[in-house]
């Protein structure tokens, strides 16, 4: 029954204390929000925490949702804010343990703990570089890359979610991929 309702109607029901309605919102969006958080943060544990915090924050602020924006836009905005908060927190934490001489952002993008032992060292290094490269993109560019690759959204869906013109979304992705290419061309020489 709830599966037939729109996101906006589910929010209305959630406001009137229908927890099942909010559960349906979580079921619909948890994977995409987790993907967004993973792409933004590059770490599984932090992505899980950020996704969890996103839905708790959304639930707490249900009454502030006025229906002017889409639910997807609202959730994405909360998720990106949570990711930025997690990054800031992680950066502060790492600064307490490491010297301040090397790059700050790159410290956050470390290899996940549960990586497969079957992976080669070269593959692991490559993935680490990609995480670092994506993590060093400006937030607005990184968000578009993650929404496209991790959430597998169309340009039109990204445009609707971010409330940006379609041309802006395309040009941001174009710029992001160009910057990634440049970073990935340069980084292999640094680690070898």
């Amino acid at each position, binding site marked *: 029954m709830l599966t037939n309702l729109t996101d906006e109607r589910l929010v209305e029901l959630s406001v009137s204390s229908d927890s099942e309605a*909010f559960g349906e919102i979580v079921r619909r969006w*948890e*994977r995409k929000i987790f993907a967004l958080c*993973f792409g933004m943060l590059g770490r599984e544990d932090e992505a899980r925490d950020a996704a969890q915090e996103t839905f708790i924050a959304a639930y707490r602020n249900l009454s502030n949702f006025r229906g002017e924006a889409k639910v997807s836009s609202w959730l994405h905005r909360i998720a990106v804010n949570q990711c930025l908060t997690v990054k800031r927190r992680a950066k502060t934490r790492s600064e307490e343990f490491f010297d301040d001489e090397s790059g700050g952002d790159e410290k956050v993008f470390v290899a996940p703990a549960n990586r497969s032992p079957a992976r080669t060292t070269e593959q692991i290094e490559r993935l680490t570089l990609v995480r670092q490269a994506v993590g060093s993109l400006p937030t607005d560019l990184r968000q578009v890359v993650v929404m496209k690759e991790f959430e597998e959204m169309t340009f039109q869906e990204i445009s609707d979610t971010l409330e940006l013109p379609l041309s802006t979304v395309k*040009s941001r992705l*174009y710029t992001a991929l160009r910057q990634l290419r440049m970073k990935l061309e340069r980084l292999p020489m640094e680690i070898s």
Partner: protein
Amino acid sequence: MKDVNCKNSNEIVPYMYGELATSAATEFETHLLECQACTDEFAALSAARYEVYDWKKLEFDPLASPAIRIPVGEVGEVSWIEKLRASFAGSWVMPAAAFAGLALIAVLLAIVVSSRNTGSDVVQRNANAPVNMPANTRKADQGAVATPTETETGVDTSAPAHSVPKPAVVRDSSRRDVRPQPAIAPRRTTPRSTTAQTPTVPRLNEFAEEKDDSLRLAELFEDIDTSE
């Protein structure tokens, strides 16, 4: 990477993600065969995209979705106004009924208030009358206007003959309104006696000539009274 100076370069990303219409995609493929800059750019962007795609496939796809736990009892306390708003969100019947009820109450209140005001209006106006006396009239009365008798006749026998401003000077339209009120008269007697003992020029002299239109009128009244 150099900037691509080709007007078709903005088609690279939509083509790479398969979001060009079929005809536009075919046209762009033809263009790629002819434009080396676009071909190189397409290859570079595809390589970057592949890295991200590979990262996602290897590290994200195997992960299970997180078990989101919303502590419903602890958070999300909804205020009564939000519950009220939510209950009205579904249908127009309830808001319409509520509006009609409020309108009815407002009309009834208006009727009750207006009926009460009608009865007490006259009494209220009389009670307020002395308080509403204009300030300039009061000031003039202290200096020049003396007794109720003078007020009626407009003649001040104690005033010097050469004195231009007679008591009637202040008898303008506002003064005419206050004339019948006996409550003011006792206050006027004291200043008058002072005026009679000390021949000070009344402050009414300070009025500009253009404001003395009533002077001639008062003199006319005086003439009439004298002739009678």
